[in-house]
């Protein structure tokens, strides 16, 4: 049961049940959807950015606890960041998820994202843990012209 409890830590379960920043963002400047064709899960990320700095971000998701929690934690971390900083953080997250011995790479920048550590034992779920990130990172620099 321990791999399982690591996957479904309280932080994950809480974000799943009571996600942060859920729903459409009023006055968003960008919006992107990511879809997992394997399972049919969908996540939509809305953001607002001014001069390449993110000033607001929300999401909506039809998906599992891992994808919802990951999206929720993501929206809590990114305000005030530039698209480059967002990309850096995403590559840190990927490095963390893909490296089974990544204790050492735990970074305080990752914040609650380290609660996704359990995903490392479930390779099939990495796509869930990164779905919202893909929606944002693949689109934030091109669609976020701001005013």
């Amino acid at each position, binding site marked *: *049961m321990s*791999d*399982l409890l690591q*996957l*479904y830590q309280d932080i994950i*379960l809480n974000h*799943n*049940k009571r996600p942060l920043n859920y729903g459409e963002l009023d006055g968003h400047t960008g919006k992107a959807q990511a879809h997992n064709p*394997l*399972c*049919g*899960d*969908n996540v939509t990320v809305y953001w607002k950015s001014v001069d390449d700095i993110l000033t607001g971000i929300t999401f909506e998701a*039809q*998906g*599992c*606890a*891992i994808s*919802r929690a990951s999206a929720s934690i993501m929206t809590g971390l990114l305000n005030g960041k530039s698209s480059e900083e967002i990309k850096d953080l995403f590559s840190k997250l990927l490095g963390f998820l893909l490296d089974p011995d990544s204790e050492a790479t735990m970074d305080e920048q990752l914040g609650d994202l380290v609660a996704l550590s359990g995903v490392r034992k*479930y390779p099939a*779920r990495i796509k*869930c843990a990164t779905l919202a990130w893909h929606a944002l990172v693949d689109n934030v620099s091109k669609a976020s012209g701001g005013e």
Partner: protein
Amino acid sequence: MSFDVASIRKEFPILKTLVGKKPLVYLDNAATTQKPRRVIQALESYYTETNANIHRGVHYLAERATEAYEEARRVVARFLNAGTEDEVIFVRGTTEGINLIAHSFGKRFIESGDEILISTMEHHANIVPWQLLCESTGAILKVIPVSDAGELDMEAFDQLLSERTKLVSVVHVSNSLGTINPVKTIVEKSHAAGAKVLLDGAQAVGHFLVDVRDLDCDFYVFSGHKLFGATGIGAVYGKYDMLDSLPPYQGGGDMISQVTFEKTTYKAPPGRFEAGTPHIAGAIAMAEAIHYLNELDRTDLISHEHDLLEYATGSLSELDGLKIYGTAAEKVSLLSFTMEGTHPHDIATVLDADGIAIRAGHHCTQPLLQRYGISATGRASLAFYNTREEIDKLVESLKKIQVLFA
């Protein structure tokens, strides 16, 4: 006399698997069934005693392999009660079978403005080939709706059927809902309207006997791996005169009568539709799976599965917030469900930690799940080697999930 599930289970080596320390509870039979020992042995003995290419060698092994492959065709023909073995085409599986018919029947019979009728509960394999055919010909795809209980709307079917309908292609048993469709009625009505009928039997043949002549369908398609055989093999049944009127599917070796650069002539069915070296071992092993089933009493298997379905439906329904999708009067032992507050993927992951294998997702039936306003279900699909104890384990594990995600 009474059904002895313990001795049946002994025939399936994989059922002894431990997942971690927990015994495997395999409830994903709609995805693929497990194989009895004699099917696995048939594959091995083919490669140790028979292996050669078929239909063109004169040596000992080539004749032996050809005879075994053609005997497998006769076994499949008898299994379906086809008129002759020439009505059985070996393919990779149901998907390839439907594509074959879409290609060859489409080329011969489908023109712009013709209509092809499918249903909301089709697997993507019985949707996309028709969309491709419609795109290339200008034909129109029409869809029979389903009810809340997961049954075809037969009144809508009557209205959709017209002289423009050239083909009705519907699933015999739904892989997402378990519904057994009234295919005999569908065939009668379609024929009366002048349309041909293809039945997707992928989920049917593993649960009950199918008699294609009694159904009077024009085509019937199924996969070996859902019939306790190997992956990569399946069969298309087609009425001989129909098959004989169709152009080839793929071109290549073994499907021709004579090749010159000016003109190539094709073999009669089924050879015309079997280009290249087929999955010889798979066909032989599928015949072995059919022998295995034939030696069991199918009535016993059906009543055991029915008992499992009733038992599972009763126990799952007692769980708070659990909703079963697919409550048709006629259904096979398959339960699609959602549980409030927990996504099906999370359910499947937690069940897996208890050794329980179910499927979570859209089951390649996205339009059907959209019909019910959901994107995924958990699906427990049972075979005759499953037991009530395994259902108890499923229910216990689901209760734990409710606590974890509460």
